[in-house]
């Protein structure tokens, strides 16, 4: 309906005055009521679909979170790559124009992103803007005096430095090397070992106080190293001189600009450099790198981050010239160190007490977020929490008491989960990308929990009742964490589904076997309780189970119509039903009701057969009474229990009535002949 129509209708209807309006209100009210009722009916009518849909929505939600998480990851990778390619160009220096990125230049750019994958601990090296790889290769380090082998190295020559890396003894994934040291080319003295007695293909590096000697594999490889080292040093030197000259020219420019101010305005470029050098000249800014070092050393993380923020704010106002870029690189180096230290705060190591709790991590997290490293902070925070949870769970002593263990396990796990959640919200407010990370984390922790849980509960032949209790316990806890907005019940049910279903099946089968066994030996003799006291005791027992009408099946001082078989069946059947309902979830609806029906039907079938076979001509009343007990007393009890738990009727047992009728008919015909 178009809104205009509504306005028209309202206008028309409101012309009739108050009475008309009240009528209208009544009509609308009724309409609303009817709609609500219809909705409710529909919900019941389509109950299973409703459940299914809710489940789908929940898992969809989970998937969306995961997707969002993956997208955030991708985005940060993309950003990092873009960042790198941009700085890569800018760092090339004056020979490159600001706008013109010529075709093919991208190919010659060798960015350092790949180094991160190859070399452990080199992120500080790769983050310097404008750095790129020139050459790399394996080298054998030998002792420079005795010529004994020291170690195998892999060297990376960058445009401004030489990075030496050692081979990782146990290679994991793509990471092959570990950063050993970085020599700046500005002071690197290279010496060709022309004749060293027996040592071939060697060269030396003098970097006071180190004298290091390396051996290349072939004369050609060594020649390459020396030539490229030489050439790279030359290039860097040329670039540095150019920069110095440019800076000197800028100063000269300014001087002339000052002396004949109106004659010639300074060029945009030189004005920028003047501005730059002036902006960078502030005392506090000049001292900032050293102050940062001090703050980091004193673990004054807040102060350090304050300084970083202040510096960044200041630099943002500066033109992006070479001087600012270089200054930024110095600051970046400190930020890198600061980040490392903060990350170490969050790292879980054996020597650090694990029981610090999440509040201890918050300080580091807060500073990391301020540094713009929220996703790293999030990652580490959660890893930290994982370690704490694992530790606490490992501390639980398994005492051979499964339900006690599970109680404690649930307590430890879910308390930690709750605590982590609450702490997470405090530490990462407004960080939605991180929040999805948290959701993903909860899923994986849940998996760990379930694995631990399952290995305790399902691995050994645990009693079905205890299993049911454990599952129910865990489910209660799952519901509890919804207080912080976490949906864990579905996850738990999904992870448990196959185990739980298998157990339900097994328990049902086991009971079916018992039914068969008892029935094969049944002689349809009612139980004689011998005295009234025992009779009363029996009745109380049955009433406790919920069979309030048991009195209909007892007579005299000590007699009952029920056979031993029926009594035993009743006890184990009710207990099984209760257990199954304890771990009930809507997905198991069919499985559970089928088990309910199958077992009691088998028991009733025994009565049916006994009547129709005429094997027990004298016991027909007993048989009938027992059948009536099953259908009219026991089945309704189970049905009501089912409804109480699930909110739905248990129609699967309705067909028992028909069987009872059939038995009655058979019994009456039998008594007639």
């Amino acid at each position, binding site marked *: 309906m178009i809104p205009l129509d509504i306005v028209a209708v309202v206008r028309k209807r409101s012309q009739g005055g108050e009475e008309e309006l009240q009528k209208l209100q009544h009509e609308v009210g009724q309409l609303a009521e009817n709609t609500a009722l219809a909705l409710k009916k529909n919900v019941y009518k389509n109950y299973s679909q409703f459940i299914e849909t809710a489940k789908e929505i929940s898992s969809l939600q989970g998937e969306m979170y995961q997707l969002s998480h993956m997208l955030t990851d991708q985005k940060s990778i993309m950003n990092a790559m873009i960042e790198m390619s941009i700085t890569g160009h800018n760092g090339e220096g004056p020979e490159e124009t600001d706008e013109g990125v010529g075709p093919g230049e991208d190919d010659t750019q060798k960015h350092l992103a790949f180094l991160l994958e190859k070399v452990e*601990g080199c992120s500080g090296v790769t983050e310097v803007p404008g750095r790129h790889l020139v050459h790399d290769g394996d080298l054998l380090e030998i002792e420079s005096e005795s010529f004994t082998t020291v170690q195998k190295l892999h060297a990376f020559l960058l445009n401004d430095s030489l990075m030496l890396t050692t081979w990782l003894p146990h290679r994991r994934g793509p990471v092959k090397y570990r950063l*050993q040291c*970085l020599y700046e080319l500005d002071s690197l*003295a290279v010496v060709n*070992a*022309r004749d*060293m007695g027996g040592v071939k293909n060697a060269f030396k590096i003098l970097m006071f*106080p180190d004298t290091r000697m390396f051996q290349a594999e072939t004369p050609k490889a060594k020649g390459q190293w*020396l030539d490229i080292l030489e050439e790279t040093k030359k290039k860097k030197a040329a670039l540095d001189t150019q920069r110095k000259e440019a800076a000197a020219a800028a100063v000269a420019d300014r001087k002339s600009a000052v002396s004949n101010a109106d004659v010639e305005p300074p060029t945009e470029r030189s004005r920028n450099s003047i501005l730059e050098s002036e902006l960078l000249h502030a005392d506090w800014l000049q001292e900032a790198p050293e102050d940062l070092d001090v703050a980091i050393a004193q673990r004054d993380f807040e102060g350090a981050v304050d300084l970083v923020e202040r510096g960044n704010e200041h630099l943002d106002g500066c033109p992006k010239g070479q001087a600012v870029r270089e200054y930024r690189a110095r600051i970046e180096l400190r930020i890198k160190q600061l980040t490392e230290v903060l990350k170490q705060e969050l790292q879980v190591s054996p020597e650090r007490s694990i029981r610090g709790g999440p509040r201890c991590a918050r300080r580091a997290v807060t500073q990391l977020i301020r540094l713009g490293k929220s996703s790293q902070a999030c990652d580490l925070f959660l890893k930290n929490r994982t370690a704490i949870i694992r530790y606490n769970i490992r501390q639980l002593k398994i005492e051979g008491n499964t339900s006690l263990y599970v109680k404690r396990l649930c307590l430890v796990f879910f308390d930690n989960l709750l605590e982590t959640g609450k702490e997470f919200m405090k530490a990462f407010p407004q960080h939605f990308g991180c929040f999805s990370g948290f959701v993903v984390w909860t899923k994986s922790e849940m998996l760990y929990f379930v694995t631990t849980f399952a290995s305790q509960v399902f691995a050994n032949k645990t009693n079905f009742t205890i299993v049911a209790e454990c599952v129910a316990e865990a489910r209660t806890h799952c519901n509890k964490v919804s207080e912080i907005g976490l949906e864990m019940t579905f996850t738990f049910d999904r992870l448990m589904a196959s185990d739980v279903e298998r157990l339900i099946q097994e328990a049902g089968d086991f009971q079916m076997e018992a039914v068969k066994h008892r029935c094969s030996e049944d002689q349809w003799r009612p139980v004689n309780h011998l005295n009234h006291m025992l009779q009363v005791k029996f009745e109380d027992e049955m009433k406790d189970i919920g069979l309030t009408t048991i009195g209909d099946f007892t007579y005299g001082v000590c007699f009952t119509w029920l056979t031993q078989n029926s009594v035993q069946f009743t006890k184990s059947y009710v207990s099984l039903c209760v257990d199954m309902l304890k771990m009930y979830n809507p997905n198991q609806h069919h499985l559970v009701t089928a088990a309910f029906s199958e077992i009691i039907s088998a028991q009733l079938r025994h009565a049916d057969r006994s009547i129709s076979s005429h094997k027990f001509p004298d016991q027909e009343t007993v048989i009938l009474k027992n059948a009536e007990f099953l259908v009219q007393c026991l089945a309704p009890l189970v049905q009501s229990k089912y409804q109480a738990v699930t909110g739905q009727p248990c129609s699967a047992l309705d067909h028992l009535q028909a069987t009872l009728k059939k038995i009655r008919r058979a019994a009456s015909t039998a008594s007639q002949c």
Partner: protein
Amino acid sequence: MSKGKTQAPTVIHKVIMVGSGGVGKSALTLQFMYDEFVEDYEPTKADSYRKKVVLDGEEVQIDILDTAGQEDYAAIRDNYFRSGEGFLCVFSITEQDSFQATNDFREQILRVKSDENIPFLLVGNKMDLEEKRQVSIEDATARAQQWNVPYVETSAKTRANVDKVFFDLMRSIRVKKQATPSSGGGKKQSNTGGGKDKRKKKKCIIL
């Protein structure tokens, strides 16, 4: 026991050839090493050589660093100089400028080693080219006296005094080492003024 790498480490004396380009540093080195005069030796690279010699009856090794070219960074040149225990400061007697340049080299070396008594020889090379002499013996000797170092004239071509300058320098290094018992064959220089090098040490960032 007398051959092979397994023998006890012999003493190594580390000698550095300094001086302007073209004065004959490489020619002197090659003459000492291989007893031959090389007319044109590629001037670009810093080369090092190791040779076993018998110094006054004792077998020692000489490690010669033949520097080359003008380094773009003073820090690099300093690193070369730091690695030496003794210096042959060479000029060509046929080139006045190269003689003047020895002042700079002396100054740079003293700054790095901060030791007035560092083993050091002033070497006037190309003495076979007497007819082209530009630097008088008097001038050279005067400077050597001022520095309190020996002055020796050599010819890489005729091999005159070639062994002498290397052996005299090694003797002077040996004396120095005996005076300061820091030499145990260790690769590190420990006899230098440490204060000046603090800045440099920072440059190797070991993570």
